[in-house]
């Protein structure tokens, strides 16, 4: 089977729409017949990434590549970048403002959650340029 490639735009100015791309990706994977736990792990990881794009980076794009062996996702933004990645990866670390916290996010659990639900996570980031997070989930 040839790899399936999907592309989604994530709008940066509407928090209420955040998660739309993740929902589409989830339904796509379900439709392709991947096991429920894999679909859910991918959905949670990409959802946290999508939320981050919206609250920290003014939006971005998500590229997905699907093969029977592996689901790869690239979450790409042109936001402020992450100055200290190991600090950002710590549970509880967050620079999210109070208004984001009132919306139920900004607990500093997003990046750790993404790591937890994926097999590979690589963060490419440069301050002032943007952030790309590469994710892989293998189908065992």
């Amino acid at each position, binding site marked *: 089977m040839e790899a399936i490639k999907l592309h989604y735009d994530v709008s940066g100015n509407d*928090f*209420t*729409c*955040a*998660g739309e791309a*993740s*929902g589409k990706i*989830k339904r796509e994977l379900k439709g392709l017949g991947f096991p*429920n736990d894999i679909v*859910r*792990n991918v*959905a*949670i990881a990409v*959802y*946290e990434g999508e*939320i981050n794009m919206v609250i920290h980076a003014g939006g971005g794009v998500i590229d997905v590549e699907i093969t029977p062996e592996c689901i790869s996702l690239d979450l790409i933004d042109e936001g402020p970048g992450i100055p200290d990645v190991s600090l950002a990866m710590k549970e509880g670390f967050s620079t999210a403002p109070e208004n984001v916290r009132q*919306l*139920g*996010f*900004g*607990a*500093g*659990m*997003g990046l*750790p*959650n993404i790591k*937890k*639900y994926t097999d590979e996570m690589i963060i490419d980031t440069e301050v002032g340029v943007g952030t790309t997070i590469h994710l892989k989930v293998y189908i065992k």
Partner: protein
Amino acid sequence: MKISEIQTILNAELICGADLLESEVFTACGSDMMSDVLAFVKEQAVLLSGLVNPQVIRTAEMMDMKCIVFVRGKKPSMDMIDLATERDIVLLRSDLEMFTACGLLYKHGLKGGSGI
């Protein structure tokens, strides 16, 4: 426990999902922090929350949850109701506060997601 029993125990108003009230659920979690909910997947089927925005529905969607109970009488918007309806998620609304709602469901046999 059936979702209809949750409705009765919490004296809750059904907002949408009448056709799904007879679904069985075994575990629940209560939180206003969506990242905390997303951190622990243990097949929780019910989310109790005092937070009202579309991300509560999205969170339940990503987690394959079947039912959301809004506590403290919180009212979801029409957009949220439409989204939940599309995703086959039952929405309930109770005047009880979080602690009491969770306590009542726990007493009636619904368990937390962590297996404890």
